[in-house]
């Protein structure tokens, strides 16, 4: 069984979001998603300063198996892409909720978080 931290919110397409104390939102992919995709070999991240609407494709993760689009779980402006992933995409596999985070954004409407799944609902989704 994959790990699903209870303090995060999830998109059905397996992205997770964590709202930090400074109000920014960190985004990554779930343990379940990295397990399904297999070893990561390339991550294409959005540039700082670009803005995305909720549900817009904004990044690509490529594993040995396939390329997958990553969708913005919240609308907002990108402020940082994980600089470690260019050299070490495997961090997405080894630490999907920690060092393997993808990008950080400033949400333009933090109430959108309510439209995302909580841990329990996301866990149910995986059981289906």
């Amino acid at each position, binding site marked *: 069984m994959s790990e699903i931290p209870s303090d995060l919110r999830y998109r059905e397409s397996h992205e997770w979001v964590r709202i930090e104390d400074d109000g920014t939102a960190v985004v990554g992919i779930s343990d379940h998603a990295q397990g399904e995709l*297999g*070893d990561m*070999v*390339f991550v*294409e991240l959005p540039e700082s300063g670009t803005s995305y609407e909720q549900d817009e494709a904004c990044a*690509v993760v*490529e594993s*040995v*198996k396939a*390329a997958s689009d990553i969708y913005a779980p919240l609308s907002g402006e990108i402020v940082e892409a994980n600089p470690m992933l*260019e050299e070490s995409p*495997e961090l997405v*596999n080894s630490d999907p909720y920690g060092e393997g985070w993808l990008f950080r954004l400033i949400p333009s409407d933090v109430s959108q978080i309510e439209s995302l799944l909580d841990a329990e609902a996301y866990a149910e989704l995986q059981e289906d």
Partner: protein
Amino acid sequence: MRRTPLYKAHLANGARLVNFGGWELPIHYGSQIDEHHQVRHAAGMFDVSHMTVVDIHGPRSREFLAYLLANDVAKLQRPGKALYSCMLTEQGTVIDDLIAYFLDEEWFRLVVNATTRDKDLAWMERQGAEFGVSIRENSGLAMIAVQGPQARDRVASLLLASDATAVAELKPFTAQHFGELFIARTGYTGEDGFEVSLPAGQAEDFWQNLLATGVKPCGLGARDTLRLEAGMNLYGQDMDEDVTPLESGLGWTVAMKDDRDFIGREALESQQVNGPGRHLIGLVLEGRGILRSHQRVLTDRGEGETTSGGFAPTLQKAIALARLPVGAEAACQVEIRGKLLPARMVKVPFVRNGAACEGIL
């Protein structure tokens, strides 16, 4: 789905299983990339029991295969010798690729792909009728490929001392029976090693014994990246019944020097007159990104397409096989999700015996 005799062992080893042409087989046992490196640097083993073993019996077996196959079984003079060949349609296109083993004058063994089993057997039956040969699938065998620089020593360590000496002396592309084991010095990884066929009932013990000597289980995922680095074609992906061996980097496997009559010869000869317009060649992506199959390739002589692509763990670069116009400049572009990225054509293999080949990096 069909399961091999090693199914339980795969579960016990933590395999992630997938449907591969109707067979439930491991894609990896944790990390595909670790398994890839294991084979390049030490020894790994693959369950390839899904491969189809076909035994050809009868006094006219050699004559039949000389007609059936594009490579010439006349090259097989010593018992145990193996030959890689395509089996072609009358149009010269590829029905399957296979390995033929010469066991004795009345017994040859073919190992063909699992995904093409039914059409291969039907084609052989049809062509074999006039030669009076018996064509029988040997479905009672399991097959384990043990590959990597330490593979041969590991296998030898499991045999009787007298057999161990003989197996150590087995030449590349040669096979021999050792009791009920049929050991061939062949593989699909670009590394040294053996492919061992054995009675299904003995497969699990043999697998566990290999595990105990330090050979790590590897899945279909690593098998695919290893063969791609080794520049070896995958049937159904890099060639099929729409292309000839001359368009698939396999001209070297077609024996046309003498006047032997074989299926597809006429078509290949007429294709040779003008030269095939396309050929299969290696690509290395210059920058960051991943090559996949069916990406568009732009050259100065027109367009082509990747047939297999992926991240090459040994090279830490993206590589592909691509079918491209003959005579194009090496510098080309590949379309990846709407962007054109620079790539370079290279001669395959990309990797042999653990290291990048000259001109690849």
